[in-house]
């Protein structure tokens, strides 16, 4: 009976797996990290790729080696070894995955908790009501002193916490900004809260991630000719300027509207 030593193969498998892990990590393609949470989440992902590559390497190496090494020759009437199990080995391959998933769970919980704690600290942040509807987004700035309603565009100051209160008047949408690693459904009948800190000035895509009807595809600012404006993160000064500009515009609209009413009623 030809048997190979198992331990060297585990070592080789781990090495091959490590190479796969490194490749996966080096070749990972992620959007730019534009929020305070992004790096934590990406580090989780790198950790996943790390152990996934090793497990995949070991499994596939054993698969290929057993299929090649123990292959049947033509008209081979031999039988395999009559081995029904090795208890310690089964314990090992129960415990190791257990440790890995505990690490995953702990990591996930830690990141989640950190974000939750930060979210509480952000209670003084900018509050923005997000209305996802068929087929577009509307933003109400609720913070005292700003109070700007029904904006088509989401503009935020950099490095300042923001709390999104998300809802929908019609069907489920999902507010997804991949650069912030953030997604939350806009569910009709309830308000879902989620918060973040944008850390990078720039323009980012906002995508509706939940199928919401015939216009779902178009609710994606990444499409060419999209009518959905990208999310803009700007400096505090630019933000203040934008607010002032929007307020003037809103006042003008209101003035024209009341003038129209006055004209039509006279």
């Amino acid at each position: 009976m030809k048997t190979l030593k198992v331990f060297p193969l585990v070592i080789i498998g781990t090495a091959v797996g490590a190479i796969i892990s490194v490749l996966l990590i080096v070749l990972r393609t992620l959007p730019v990290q534009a929020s305070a949470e992004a790096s934590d989440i990406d580090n989780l992902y790198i950790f996943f790729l790390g152990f996934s590559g090793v497990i995949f390497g070991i499994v596939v190496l054993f698969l290929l080696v057993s299929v090649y090494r123990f292959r049947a020759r033509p008209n081979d009437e031999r039988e395999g070894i009559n081995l029904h199990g090795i208890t310690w080995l089964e314990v090992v391959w129960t415990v190791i995955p257990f440790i890995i998933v505990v690490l995953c769970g702990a990591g996930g919980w830690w990141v989640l908790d950190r974000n939750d704690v930060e979210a509480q600290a952000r209670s003084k942040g900018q509050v923005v009501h997000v209305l996802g509807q068929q087929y577009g987004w509307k933003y109400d700035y609720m913070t005292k002193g700003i109070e700007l309603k029904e904006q088509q565009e989401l503009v935020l100051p950099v490095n300042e916490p923001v709390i999104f209160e998300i809802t929908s008047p019609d069907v489920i949408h999902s507010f997804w900004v991949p650069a912030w690693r953030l997604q939350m459904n806009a569910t009709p009948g309830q308000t879902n809260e989620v918060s973040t800190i944008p850390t990078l000035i720039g323009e980012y895509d906002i995508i509706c991630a939940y199928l919401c009807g015939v216009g779902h595809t178009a609710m994606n600012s990444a499409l060419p000719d999209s009518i959905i404006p990208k999310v803009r993160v700007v400096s505090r000064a630019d933000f203040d300027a934008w607010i002032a500009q929007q307020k003037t515009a809103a006042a003008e609209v209101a003035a024209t509207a009341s003038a129209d009413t006055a004209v039509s009623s006279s």
Partner: protein
Amino acid sequence: MTAVLKPTLARCLWVAPAFAAIAILITVAARALVGMDPVLQESTLLTVAYIAGGIGFVVGIGGFDYWWTWMTGGELDPNDHSTHGAKSWRDYFKFNTDHKVIGIQYVVFTFIMFLVGGMFAMVFRSELARPAAQSLSPEQYNGLLSQHGVIMIFVFLVPVFAGIGNYVIPLMIGAADMAFPRLNALSFWLLPVAAFTLLTSFMFGSFDAGWTGYPTLSQQSGYGMTLYQLGVQLAGASSIATAVNFLVTIITMRAPGMTLFRMPLLVWANLATSALVVAATPFIAGAMFMAMFDREMGTHFFTIGGGGDTLVYQHIFWFYSHPAVYIMILPGFGIISEVIATHSRKPIFGYRAVAFSSAGIAILGFAVWAHHMFASGMQPWLRVPIMISTLLIAIPTGIKIFSWLGTLWGGVVRLTTANLFAVGFIFTFVIGGLSGVMVAVVPFDVSITNSYFIVAHFHYVLFGGSIMTVYAGFYHWYPKVTGRMYNELLGRWHFWITFVALNVTFFPMHYLGLLGMPRRVMDYDPQFAWMNTLISIAAFVLGASTLIFVYNMIHSARHGKLAGANPWAGLTLEWMLSSPPPTFNFPTTPRVIGGPYRYGEEGARHAIIPEAEPASVEKVGA
């Protein structure tokens, strides 16, 4: 003339419309009698017609003939086996109580549905091959993708395993048939009704809210949405009836000597699956009923403003639909255990661990449903417990993978097509399992949920997992079912094309999702164009590879080499019978004297079939 009165498809052609017409008449007449507008809305009449017509179809095919005769005091011969077993191909189009005939009916019908569902995917993959909208309207696109999901899940993957189990399990446990043969036939004949209901929804404005059919979008959809809700209920009813049948069969009808730990692992897997089906499927039936009542009767279970809540639907839906994932993979695990042990000539490594891990997955499977809802706005405290239970389920799954590796190691591995699919399955399923661990972790999940990363993950699990096991099972038991060998060369071509094309189709989707391509869209950021083109080409190759399989199966059934009783030298009971097995399976009750995987043991046997006088065999068979 008599053909339209006997239980045949010809009788269905008039009974089903008659039932539909009577139901419409009763509805209209009842409303007219109490002085209301006789036809309030056409959709109500259509719903009534579909329900009554579906029952009419099952009546027409003969699903209730025996019970009706019994109930009305007619004469019945308990030894009348005229509906049992197939003598010609025509018998496969009739109500038949033989588990082997039903198994073939299931497998062929569901595989045709697989091809139909695959076609839908081809159509929308051609739309996705280039950026910007081309040939399809958004309505058509959303309809096709919803149909693809529903057909694949409810009339292919769930029932195909019921079909394989139907054929193999009574043979494996040494039984003459399933416990309730008439119920068994009835469950099968509900499936064409379900498929008809789902597919004809195209005529009335297809359902277009994805396979999940979440309200409130489902309340806006065309009438097809009601047919989706109806069709899923029908498929669910079929599934529950089959599961009850499996449970009773496996628990009560095992041959003497077949203790729990002498059961083949496919039987273990089906026992766990059936328990899961019986406990979970009523939840989706409930969700579908409530959603249908909302649409057709103006109730307010899930409507906003009427006191309803859309999140409730998601909870109830996933309380079934996550266990459904295990319903679609556990029997596949069972198949892999059979295939790997038999073709590698080695006992399953850690039999009890594999058996218990099926049970463990079935139990844990009930505590993970909300991981589909991390971004739904559900109660925040639910996230961490669900994440932990979801991660834990990776452990029993891992045990199975390692046990199969341990089984291959030190065996004499025959790379038949069946075993190739089993080995290929381990490769692809590990990828799906590892990405499953990733998406279980809440912060990572909310960064990519509803994106192509999820599409990649569940296609690796369902195609790289379930469908690979289905193919392994098809090739493994093909000689038993047809009595002939399939063509190994074509089988190998089928495997390699499928394996390569499936990886090229689904692996790049991970990257698309991470970079920000949402699922269920018909257009995307132009920077994803080349990857989508690659995926579409690979998907067409994947679709074409099934043609090799279909040709091989059909051609070999007539022209293949004769297989003999036991071409793989398997030890389990089905290999002790002729191929195909006689109508009533075993001439005498077999006795099980050892475990099912005693490979490599000199002269070892799993069971013996006591000698019977040939005359008595003839009598039972006639």
